[in-house]
């Protein structure tokens, strides 16, 4: 069997963006033509607090190499407090994944406002670079591979 070693690694990256700030920030990055790799695919959610840890695990299950969640800056949530809950949930979830030995760079939270097209783009560029440095996600899928 031939192993395709040379095949360029094209990571799969899921970005959950809240409708009010980060999705709009991504739109601004677009209309300002601030490029970031096509590996990033955005899913629109009303608020970062809509992001269920199940969604993130499911993404990894289905082969994502990185998952990033973006929301309004703390204090600026369209729904007043959603991102504060999201912040706690993600902090604990990421800590747990780290505890299970999953590389902690595969998950990230960034607060991006509707006016921060530049930040959106630089964040995505950084995150993709980080995922490239980590390589393909195998651990999350492999925790039970000794069948």
């Amino acid at each position, binding site marked *: 069997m031939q192993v395709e070693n040379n095949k360029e690694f094209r990571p*799969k990256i*899921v970005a959950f963006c809240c*409708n*009010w*700030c980060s*999705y*709009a920030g*991504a*739109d601004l*990055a*677009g*209309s300002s*033509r*601030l*490029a*970031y790799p*096509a590996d990033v*695919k*955005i*899913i*629109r*959610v*009303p*608020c970062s*607090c*809509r*992001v*269920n*840890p*199940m*969604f993130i695990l*499911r*993404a990894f299950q*289905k*082969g*994502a190499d990185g998952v990033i969640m973006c929301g*309004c800056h703390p*204090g*600026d*949530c*369209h*729904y*007043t*407090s*959603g991102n504060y*809950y999201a912040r706690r*949930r993600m902090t604990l979830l990421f800590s747990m994944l780290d505890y299970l030995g999953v590389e902690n760079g595969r998950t990230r939270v960034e607060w991006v*406002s*509707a*006016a*921060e097209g530049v930040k959106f*783009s630089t964040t995505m560029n950084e995150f993709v670079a980080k995922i490239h440095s980590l390589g393909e996600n195998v651990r999350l899928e492999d925790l039970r591979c000794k069948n």
Partner: protein
Amino acid sequence: MQRIGVFVCHCGSNIAATVDVARVVEAAAKEPGVVHAEDYQYMCSEAGQLKIREAIKEKNLTGIVVCSCSPRMHENTFRQAAERAGINPYMVEIANIREHCSWIHKDMEEATEKAVILARAAIAKVTLNAPLQAGTSKVVKRALVIGGGIAGIQTALDIADAGYEVDIVEKTPSIGGRMSQLDKTFPTLDCSACILTPKMVEASAHEKITIYTYSEVEKVSGFVGDFTVDIRKKARSVDMSKCTGCGVCQEKCPSKKAPSEFNRGLNTRSAIYTPFAQAIPNVPVIDRENCIKFKTGKCGVCSKVCQAGAIDYDQQDEIVTQNYGAIVVATGFDTIKLDEYDEYSYSTSPDVITSLELERIMNAAGPTKGHLERMSDHKAPKSMVFIQCVGSRCADRRGKSYCSKICCMYTAKHAMLIRDKYPDVEVTVFYIDVRTPGKNFDEFYRRAVEEYGVNYIKGQVGKVSEKGDKLLVQGVDLIDNKRILMETDMVVLATAIEPNKDVRKIATMLTASIDTNNFLTESHAKLRPVESPTAGIFLSGVCQGPKDIPETVAQAGAAAVKVVGLLAKDHLVTNPCVAKSNELFCNGCSSCEKVCPYGAISYEEKEVNDHGIRETRRVAVVNSALCQGCGACTVACPSGAMDLQGFSNRQILAEVDAICK
């Protein structure tokens, strides 16, 4: 099974130049459930919408995916198109292949591949969409305007003239704002007070307008159509219903050392004061920090001299709670602090002033009664230097990255007025660029140079230092490539402007978004410039971005029209993408209720039939009129009983799966 139609937009060349639209159509057509796929030049055009409507009819479509620009742009357009063709508007999903794809990628292969994936995700989502029915909510026919400057006054007048009640909340003791501090206005050199005062009077006399001065917004809850706002009326220590505005109290007040806010600290005022003569209301307030009575318990002069008996030392802050259908933010601006720009000697020399301070000096009601003089020795200057862009266009930590927009014009105005009134004063302006877009603006600047002989030098000043009783300006003339060392009598700094420092607090209360410079964000930079992305919140004046008076007044009117458009409705259609609880899964544990920011979740003891087991259970019930659809509850719920319509667990998972496939 859904019958899905996919419509791929070229957006002229905006999408088609980087995304192979035909390939997207081809790939989409192969997806399960897709029975129709086509592309078109401009999907949002009437012709494009017609294609959607025709396809719905011909192919009996039940779900629509449009691959186009951001849903923030045209989601509504396509929903309406679907509705006109007889299907539920919430059966439409958008794949954003412009802002999130064609505009940020250069490689056609890569962009096309991504567009296909985004289309698949939208198809996967729409497969699970269910028709949603929007409810309605009431509209309170009253508006709140936060800020009583020219922006707030104009907005309030326009709304009130349309027949709706408006309340203005102003933090300082009088309405009038920054404009009341200006002497003349460009480019026509009107007297600022002469054009502002009538508007202030009109606002205070208007039967539909209530003005709360010396008041602040304390708490905001609710949402578009029905906000509940707590307004704190700070204790004025003067009974507004009794005071006649005679002014004797201010004259007799023995504490006269507080720096005058209105005169930018150039002189002092009494502890009981009205900020300026034309103040509205013409009722003073006692500044308790500087009042001898409040500090020591002794004095009480004002109370003794007040014939109306209006002085009330025991007055307390009062909270007024009021409901509003719409809120306009008009909080204005201030100049930045110059502590970190000491190369210009602002903190060491009284003869280095800001432009706003010069306005007060030039004003007949100002600290020098309108006489141009140095604050150090009260001598008339023989030479003056204006420095532009102090703190504007600065990428460093000290200043602001933006152009403050108004400085070039007001500096030309100042230079012109000084040369006009005091022809013997030499006026030099150091500039980086002179920016004069606007009707009659460049002509105005040229008149300053050509008719009034103002000396413009291109080059930012490096240092201003005191030398004897003069100021030494060290700069360069970039055109001549020559050192300039100029002795002058006064230096005026065109200081950058920034949003009022309270705006962040207010934005947080309103959940209105704000940018890194603390300017409030508009819903769309071009198409919705006076609306905040938060429904029911509108923007007026400099709180949204630097602008001059004509622009502010125009925007104030625009904001008023948007408010009137909202208040004219009897009901609003609510967002049907709200949370819904599956009572068979609900444990009644109250987790969801705890995270709901709107108090939209309550509990009922309800008899349920769980696969034959009948029992009474405590179950969560969502009030869809209160729910705003954030989804916090859905994640707090451990059993998955709580789900969000339009963004359901299964819909989002379907998107995840499609993207990761």
